[in-house]
């Protein structure tokens, strides 16, 4: 389909996800960590869309089944975006609160979970 192979989509998605994971682990700034989380979510979204498209293409005879499989993948992406938006809203609120409390948002200084 359009000459872009499935492996390219999956490869891009993997790259984005790995970038997100590494970012979450190594960065200190919570804003950047959030961006990395978004990156991970979006890589998942990309996978969803890719598979939805390829599913549709695999059922050329049955129009209803074709539409259903496409819709399912795309709806999932809508949900993920909604959840991501909510998460950012809450997360940024927490970051604001922490900043007011400690005048800093450096992740390494927030070791309250230390045993």
């Amino acid at each position: 389909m359009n000459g872009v192979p499935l492996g390219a989509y999956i490869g891009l998605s993997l790259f984005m996800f790995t970038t997100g994971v590494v970012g979450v682990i190594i960065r200190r700034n919570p804003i950047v960590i959030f961006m990395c989380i978004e990156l991970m979510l979006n890589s998942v979204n990309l996978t969803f869309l890719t598979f939805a498209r390829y599913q549709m293409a695999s059922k050329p005879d049955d129009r209803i089944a074709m539409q259903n499989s496409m819709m399912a993948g795309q709806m999932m992406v809508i949900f993920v975006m909604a959840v991501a938006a909510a998460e950012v809203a809450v997360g940024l609120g927490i970051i604001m609160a922490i900043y007011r409390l400690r005048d800093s948002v450096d992740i390494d200084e927030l070791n309250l979970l230390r045993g």
Partner: protein
Amino acid sequence: MNYESIWLVLLFPIVGFLIQALLGTRIEKMLGRRALGAIAVLPIVLSFVVGLLITLNTKGGPEATANIANLGKWIDAANLRIPFEFIVDPLSMTMVLIITGIGSLIHLYATGYMSEEKDYARFFTYMNLFIFSMLVLVLGANLVLLFVGWEGVGLCSYLLIGFWYKDLANAKAANKAFIVNRIGDWGLTLGLLMIVALLMKNQVGSSDGRYLSYDSMLPALRTALEHNPGMATVIGLLLFVGAAGKSAQFPLYLWLPDAMAGPTPVSALIHAATMVTSGVVLLNRMHVVFEMSPVASAIICAIGAFTALFAALIAFGQTDIKKVLAYSTVSQLGFMFIACGAGAYWAGMFHVTTHAFFKALLFLGAGAVIHAMAHNQDMRNYGNLRKYLPITFWTMILGTLAICAVGVPGVFGFAGFYSKEAILGAALANTHAQMEGIQVGQIAGWVGLGVAALTSIYMTRLTCLTFLGTEERWRNIPAADHHGHDDAHADEHHHELDANHTPKEVPPSMWFPLVVLALLSVGGGFVLANNGAFEHWLYPNELPILGKVSTEPSNIPLAMYSTIAAVGGIILGLAFYLKGLPKNQGFDESAWSPLRRLERDQFGYDHAMTVASVEGGGDIANALWKWFDNLLVDGVVEGSGKVSAGIGLLLKRFQTGYIRLYALMMLVGFVGFIGYFAYMLSQGGH
């Protein structure tokens, strides 16, 4: 009345107990002490009347075993059923008549004796509860109900010994009685469990699971033990340990003398007439077991004879009038066990009966003396009391003659004469009690004959020191300082014995029981022994295994010997003590002969036992505390805590608080997890 009315006999005392316990103090305030005393005596009298009516309709023999009144379920397990069932047979009814008959006389006496005490209601609460428990003990138709009564009387005994609990010595005596009795209960419990185990294993006895009910248990035991005399010996000896604890036999006798710390009516009722004879009742109930074990019988004979001798000797070293009677009781109980060991179970019960008459009389007489002598119990302060207490004196004389077993053979004898004669005769005439070829029974018979002489001597000593002679020794006690007139009036009731004291005869409520018991002590034996009436009433048939147990040794003129022992002992006693207190038995105890001092100290046995058990036990407990509790138990408990704490310290290092580390761990874990499953799936070929 037929046997099904037996529940009435049990009902009256328990109702009396509830009234005394719940309403006693209120009744005392509203109606006075006399009314409360009457309410306490009444249930026992009613029980006696009902018991008497039932007894008139009771026959001995095989049909008696059917007289079981079932009052309902109690323990109802799959293989074992123990109902509330009560047996009406000659043995139980004999005891019922003794308990309620003597019991009502002693209750009546106690209304007078305790009239100056506080806690009048508490006293009669315990007394009525005791009567109820004792009735359960003798009437219960299975060993478990017997055990319930057994523990009930033990509890009441404990409560009544410690009645004046504010005195530490009394509380200690009560504890001692309770603890020593636990040893006996241990034996009884084990014996009981052995019987259940034996019968259940052999599948004999009751088809409906009533393994411990006498009617099914006794024939079954005979079958089960027939070819197993060793088992019979084990069960017999375990039951005897129980009997020895309750009936104060040698290794376990030492609680009974201390039990005299209780009020005198208690000593008369519980520690002389009824509770201490329950061991003899148990041996009579379970006589099948002992018939089958000559070894156990020999041991019972030996212990009985030794106890009789040992306690009679100790009685010589006592100056407390109640202590003399206490050791006399232990000694007489030894006689009963000689009879049971020799196989003459009925003779043991006969002595229980006559002993109940005369020992209750002697204790109540001693109580009257103590009452008249301002609660001073030392015979060295008495003397010439016949002048002041004529009724007490004459009744006590009759009681003394009864316990000394005075009688003219073939004509007439006091109560003890017949029972002691039967016991000694049975011991000398039978060969049942033997061990390793030694005729223990016959040795016990000869020892018993000697103890009979000793009994006469120490009882004469008691009578002489208390009632006879011309010296009124309390006159030597310096008179106490007289307080002001008002003070003297205020503690009139509790003044000390001093030279100005004048003993007064006791009130009718106290001397009336004395007179009744004196009549029983004089004529009771004669009536009951008439043509073997008591024996035929208790055991109408020959014993199942021993057959006919003779009480007349063929080649020994026992009647002559025992008369010589009884009368000779009295003459010896009079020769020693008629003139008054001998110089070498006075207040200066260092002037006593060494033997008498040994006897005073119970030959060191009590002391040794107390040291061994209390101090030795204390040392063992200390060692256990230090080594077992502190090291082992605490080690395990605290050790487990310390190990978890150590593990926690180790794991704490991983909790750095850095979010990214946690995220990394999650990632590694997740990747590992997925990898593992991917690997497994690829191996599975999917």
